[in-house]
């Protein structure tokens, strides 16, 4: 049941729980309890909204930053990752296999704000060896949802 609940609410966290229970063929109380348990266990960490900021009048710039760092003895990458994720403007921090170590995504009001963060705060950290900043120009698909195009039902309206 957990997997099915998670799959459903990952796509639609606002789903009516009574309705979800019907669709899964479960009792509503069981679904509610299961979700509460998963919240307590930290499996469900939050409920977010997918926003296409492009369509609003609010200016936002997002960037992905590749960071190469020197891992510290006894702590690996955890300490430096923590230093970085504590900045509120940072959205996510991932440890990455391959050509660099950490992938940091962040949002700012303007290009300048983002570049200031990188040059003033990120690059100056002791263990950071280098950074490469990629600004996101357009989001086609985010969290499994296509933002660029609207779904059109092209099927014949009636078929046997």
């Amino acid at each position, binding site marked *: 049941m957990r997997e099915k609940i998670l799959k459903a609410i990952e796509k639609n966290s606002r789903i009516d729980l009574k309705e979800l229970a019907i669709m899964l063929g479960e009792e509503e109380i069981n679904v509610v309890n299961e979700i509460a348990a998963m919240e307590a266990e930290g499996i469900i960490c939050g409920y977010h909204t997918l926003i296409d900021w492009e369509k609003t009048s609010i200016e936002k710039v997002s960037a992905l930053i590749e960071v190469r760092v020197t891992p510290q003895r006894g702590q690996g990458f955890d300490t430096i990752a923590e230093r970085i994720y504590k900045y509120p403007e940072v959205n996510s921090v991932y440890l990455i296999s391959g050509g660099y170590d950490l992938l940091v995504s962040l949002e700012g009001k303007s290009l300048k704000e983002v570049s200031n963060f990188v040059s003033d705060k990120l690059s100056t950290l002791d263990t950071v060896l280098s950074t490469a900043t990629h600004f996101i120009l357009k989001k086609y698909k985010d969290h499994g949802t296509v933002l660029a195009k609207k779904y059109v039902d092209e099927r014949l*309206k009636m*078929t*046997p």
Partner: protein
Amino acid sequence: MRNPLSNKITTIKPSGIRKFFDIVSEMEDAISLGVGEPDFDTPWHIRDEGIYSLEKGKTFYTSNAGLKELRQEICNYYGRKQGVVYNPMTETLVTVGGSEGIDLALRCMLNPGDEVIIPTPCYVSYEPCTVMADGVPVILPLKNENQFRLTPEELEGAITEKTKILILAFPNNPTGAIMEKSDLEALVPIIEKHDLMVISDEIYSELSYKSKHVSICSLPGMKERTIVINGFSKAYAMTGWRLGYALGPELVIKQMIKLHQFAIMCAPTTSQYAAIEALKNGDDDVVEMTEAYNQRRRFLMNEFKEMNLPCFEPFGAFYVFPCIKEFGMTSEEFALKFLEEEKVAVVPGTAFGDCGEGFLRISYAYSIDDLKVAIGRLKDFVEKLRAEK
């Protein structure tokens, strides 16, 4: 000028869905619950293989029976799902959709006057294809109280000494009914006693929600008597690719290949390459889509319960078949009024045989959000009708 038409073709009625289709197509703002195909796109990795085959220049005919690798994968699939071993070289034919397989099987097995038992409500092609193959359709109306399953008594009652073929189409379009293993087992002695052949149309086999689909070909003694018709349209959301297949005894398949060779040459090459990918790596897609259908099915059943609209619980395909007899209208009248007043298109049960009178076919090959809007309107409509009474 002489009449250019054959007598046979002019006796065949046009599909009952046609009339509604024309009305719905004119109504720009109508929403529809009338489609018989998945709302999902073909999974990308399958489409990608089709595209790749074109890039590689795989644009020629394949062998008449279909690509050997595809036939092998089809046999693997029936081995995996039903535990029945078919020979890809002699017992397998790749067709243009399941529809072609039905037509071929009937034309290769019927002599003039042979009777074909067609349990209804059912898909629209069995009856006309039987007539075109010089057979005599024997319509066997199934009952709501049996959840539209075929019982041994009903079968026995329809058999005459001229009966040659029984058509079994489960999971069923339009009712959503299934036949479980025990239901099928009860039919086998009768089929054997009267020496019948079975055309088992299993195009919806993957969309079974109660238990895994059991094919009658897997029951003892039935492989030799069964022509299995299946395809890629419903399970892999590949309707437009037009690809299906037939499995059966060499004696029959050999003749079907011959006819297919003259009539069709071979199924579309691009589709065949895509289908190999579907069978090899498509299991997860099928599971995911089936789960989505099942959730919608439960949602609809609950909505019917809440609006007090009688509907047996269907465990297959993507249709529900609620009963609207209480409103004192024919299915067609109901569907027409519903379309005019609420702008929602559903298919009257009678499009699938006379015994569909008093029922509607509602498809759930739509997103939950679309279903909610449409069912909301059905609720309003039903309440209005009840208030008028």
